[in-house]
């Protein structure tokens, strides 16, 4: 398959996908003509198809989609309401588009369908006169020709090209060519006889001749002029072909005879394999967790050594296996880059500019699914650079720059990411101009414009509907392209970084994770919940004291080196019930996405872990701020933070970082106005013992709640009905003993400060030690005096003496 065919294939696959969805969307649109989201989506499809088809020189298709786009663009800007009549025409044009795509798939050309009538209608709708010129369809090229060329030698006894001398070879080629021409002519005659008109037929011959001789066909020049050309005698180009090349070319045609070093595997199988690896990674995480637990419990035992070894081997092999499978899914990014030199050439002609494209790192490999996603964004970025970035030669010369502009396309690895960098040496982005345009279009408010950093201003170009171009051209200026870039890159968890200097040029970096299914994540805790944040979005973590948080216009901010970082508490995003934690410090996870930054306040940092992304399923899909879930080593489910959505949510959430904390303090201190506001829980399996404690404490006037074992106590506590100030806990109890109860209670953040007092007849030193380890603050041995018990309770529950 040559390059053109490869690109064509990609184009067809993509277009059919897009068109399939388009039908659905359009019908939906008819019901909700006001739905801007939907319109934007439909418009993007038309735009993408147009862009790709113009680059592939399918002029009829481009012509049609261009007019479709016009109509949709008007509707998008509210200048046109989609009425059923208009929708009929739009749907008709979609049908034509489908028919054209089908023809392209079968013949590699978009001839044979008359779109002029529909185009006129479209043009009338969008306010034009209806007199548009129709380009002539390009001729059928490539495919049939190529197949025949390959097939031809097989018909004969396969002459041995290797041993031919140049003259013989040339004669052989000439013979083959003549043969081909004869066949072609016969076919054409057949077609003509069948009533079909074959346009620009002679070009087939011109096309085919170099095809057959040249070993490395240049990005096969398909008929680029839609106007029929006068026939040229075919043998001419073939004579000029260097003989050495011809010699080299011949054997390559027979290459399949060599031993196969690769096998083709269905992508589905690889996906399945990847899923299995995902399961394995989860099991490995679990194994590591269990190993840690066992280590803790049986410290010093001999078998631990062995277990450790096995666990580390398993985890090592799992990691290697994961990398190996990931590699099988990798494709060189060159597959995407290949189509750009051609695109730049066409664009420079169209725009009358001189631009050179430099490509670096085309061997860099990426996951297949990601390679598929980044094709479109790159097309849009490069078109943008050509149209808006690089200036025309005379302006460049006047500015003292070389006449020819340069766009460089680089791909390289950086840690766990691939960076694709697109630089141009054009005019750069003018921050003030961007802000003014955005203000004009009502995308931002005056105030936002003032407080906006340069980076934020650059990212304005990604907003839907934003365009700085004065006129809509065939190349760009509608304000969708960069929106496509943002959507697609975010879909693969990538981030976009724009840098620019006026007059010098701009640079855009796309940072994309290597794979989608398994990622590194930072696990954070808030109260007793855990969340996983994709490590790719984490810039750094800092520990700050609460005094470092300032409030500006109702929002919490902190100073991070020379920047001011806005803060949001993870609890506010995920509706976590927050009980005051007295700690002086907080952890801030600094998240970066493209040019935006935000500080996420969390209670604890748990650590870094490799997680497998699982979907939440249809029932729970689309929860804002949640990208999915993962299963942890202990079998529990942890939600994965969607950093993109979180940034949006943070803007809406009114920060309560400080306010709430103060309110809580007030509430708790206010609450206690009399002795009975204090609540003490008595946990003992013996009714007599509970009675004795009750007798000792009742005189204080505090409220007493009883539980007969650890399990019951835990349930009462968890029900949240009561807020306890202290607990008296017996050690030996059925179902759950005092130590386990204490350990369970201390797992909850909100009970960290709850004083647990052991009341027991166990007096051994080791018992006391265990008590302290499990989180008990006092240890009262039976028998005890009532006064002593009361004083211990008073001290620990901090009961104010004026209530007694």
């Amino acid at each position, binding site marked *: 398959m040559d390059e053109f065919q490869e690109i064509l294939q990609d184009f067809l696959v993509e277009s059919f996908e897009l068109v399939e969805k388009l039908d659905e969307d359009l019908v939906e649109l008819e019901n909700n003509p006001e739905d801007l989201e939907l319109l934007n989506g439909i418009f993007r499809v038309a735009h993408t198809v147009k862009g790709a088809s113009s680059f592939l020189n399918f002029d009829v298709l481009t012509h049609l989609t261009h007019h479709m786009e016009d109509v949709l663009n008007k509707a998008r800007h509210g200048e046109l309401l989609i009425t059923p009549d208009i929708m009929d025409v739009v749907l008709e044009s979609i049908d034509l588009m489908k028919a054209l795509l089908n023809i392209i798939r079968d013949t590699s050309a978009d001839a044979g369908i008359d779109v002029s009538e529909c185009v006129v209608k479209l043009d009338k709708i969008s306010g034009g006169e209806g007199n548009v010129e129709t380009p002539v369809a390009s001729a059928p090229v490539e495919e049939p020709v190529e197949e025949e060329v390959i097939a031809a030698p097989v018909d004969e006894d396969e002459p041995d090209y290797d041993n031919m001398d140049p003259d013989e070879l040339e004669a052989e080629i000439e013979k083959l060519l003549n043969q081909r021409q004869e066949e072609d002519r016969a076919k054409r005659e057949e077609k003509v006889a069948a009533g079909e008109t074959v346009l620009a037929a002679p070009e087939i011959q011109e096309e085919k001749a170099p095809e057959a001789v040249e070993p490395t066909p240049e990005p096969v020049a398909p008929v680029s002029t839609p106007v029929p050309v006068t026939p040229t005698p075919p043998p001419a180009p073939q004579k000029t072909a260097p003989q050495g090349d011809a010699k080299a070319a011949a054997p390559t045609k027979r290459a399949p005879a060599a031993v196969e070093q690769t096998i083709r595997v269905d992508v589905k199988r690889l996906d399945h394999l990847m899923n299995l690896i995902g399961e394995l990674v989860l099991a490995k995480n679990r194994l590591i967790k269990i190993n840690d637990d066992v280590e803790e419990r049986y410290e010093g035992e001999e078998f631990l050594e062995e277990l450790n070894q096995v666990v580390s081997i398993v985890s090592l092999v799992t990691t290697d296996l994961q990398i190996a499978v990931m590699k099988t899914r990798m494709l060189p990014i060159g597959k995407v880059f290949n189509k750009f030199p051609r695109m730049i050439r066409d664009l420079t002609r169209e725009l009358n500019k001189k631009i050179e494209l430099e490509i670096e790192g085309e061997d860099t490999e990426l996951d297949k699914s990601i390679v598929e996603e980044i094709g479109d964004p790159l097309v849009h970025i490069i078109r943008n650079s050509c149209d808006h970035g690089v200036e025309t030669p005379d302006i460049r010369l006047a500015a003292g720059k070389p006449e020819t502009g340069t766009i460089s396309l680089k791909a390289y690895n950086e840690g766990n990411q691939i960076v694709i960098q697109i630089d141009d040496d054009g005019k750069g982005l003018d921050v003030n101009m961007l802000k003014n345009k955005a203000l004009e279009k009502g995308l931002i408010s005056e105030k936002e414009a003032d407080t906006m950093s340069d980076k934020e201003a650059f990212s304005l170009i990604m907003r839907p509907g934003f365009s700085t171009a004065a006129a809509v051209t065939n190349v760009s200026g509608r304000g969708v392209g960069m929106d496509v870039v943002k959507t697609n890159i975010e879909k693969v968890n990538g981030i976009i970084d724009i840098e620019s200097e006026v007059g010098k040029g701009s640079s855009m970096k796309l940072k994309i994770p290597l794979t989608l299914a398994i990622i590194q994540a930072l696990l954070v805790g808030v109260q007793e919940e855990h969340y996983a944040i994709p490590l790719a979005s984490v810039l750094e973590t800092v520990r700050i004291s609460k005094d470092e948080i300032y409030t500006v216009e109702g929002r919490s901010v902190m100073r991070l080196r020379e920047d001011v970082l806005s803060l949001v508490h993870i609890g506010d995003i995920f509706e976590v019930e927050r009980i005051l934690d007295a700690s002086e410090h907080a952890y801030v996870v600094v998240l970066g996405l493209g040019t935006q930054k935000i500080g996420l306040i969390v209670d604890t940092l748990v650590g870094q872990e490799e997680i497998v992304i699982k979907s939440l399923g*249809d*029932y*729970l899909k689309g*929860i804002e701020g949640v990208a999915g*879930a993962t*299963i942890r080593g202990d079998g*529990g489910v942890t*939600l994965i933070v969607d950093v993109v959505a979180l940034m949006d949510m943070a803007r809406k959430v009114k920060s309560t970082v400080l306010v709430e904390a103060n309110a809580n303090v007030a509430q708790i201190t206010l609450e206690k106005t009399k002795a009975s506001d204090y609540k003490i829980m008595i946990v003992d399996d013996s009714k007599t013992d509970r009675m004795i404690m009750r007798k000792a404490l009742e005189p204080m006037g505090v409220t007493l709640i009883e539980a007969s074992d650890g399990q019951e106590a835990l*349930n009462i506590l968890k029900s949240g009905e009561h807020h306890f100030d202290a607990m008296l806990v017996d050690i030996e109890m059925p179902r759950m003993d005092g130590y386990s109860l204490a350990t369970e209670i201390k797992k909850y953040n909100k009970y960290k400060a709850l004083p647990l007092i052991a009341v027991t007849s166990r007096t051994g030193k080791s018992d006391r030690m265990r008590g302290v380890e499990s989180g008990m603050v006092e240890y009262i041995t039976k028998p005890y005096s009532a006064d002593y018990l009361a004083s211990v309770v008073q001290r620990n529950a901090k009961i104010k003496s004026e209530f007694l």
Partner: protein
Amino acid sequence: MSDKLKQIINKQGEQQSTDTLDQSDDIVQLVGFIIGEEEYAVPILAIQEIIKPFSWTRVPQVPPYVLGVFNLRGSVIPLIDLRVQFGLPAKNHNEETRFFVLKQGDEVAGFVIDRLTAAIRIKKANIGPAPDTISGDDTMIDGVGKQEDRIITILKVDKLLERDF
């Protein structure tokens, strides 16, 4: 002889197949469970499994009856408290509480129920439509089954698995 044998075998086969058809036509197999005071049932074939309660993870921005998600052998599955969904106050889980995992097509979800009753075989003839006042497309009730001494509300699995927020 072999012809005769074939005939007999064929006859038997026919009889058997009509037998089973009759059975499946007439009898509906359900699993009954209690929520609050009422007995409900779902078709046995919609049940993937019934498990004892275990821990789950809360999910934000969902109605109160969606408790969160749990891990069922490697799949992340939503957990719905039917008590709350049916407008009853939430209750702490006890020894009798079960998670009902229902499946239809690709949709899977766990439902918390108060207590299991029994597998029920009920004749189709004994299943009446839902009362007029609550019938329609929106209702979760598929029909009402009558057995000697009790009335069982049969629920629509697809409605249970449908997200309505």
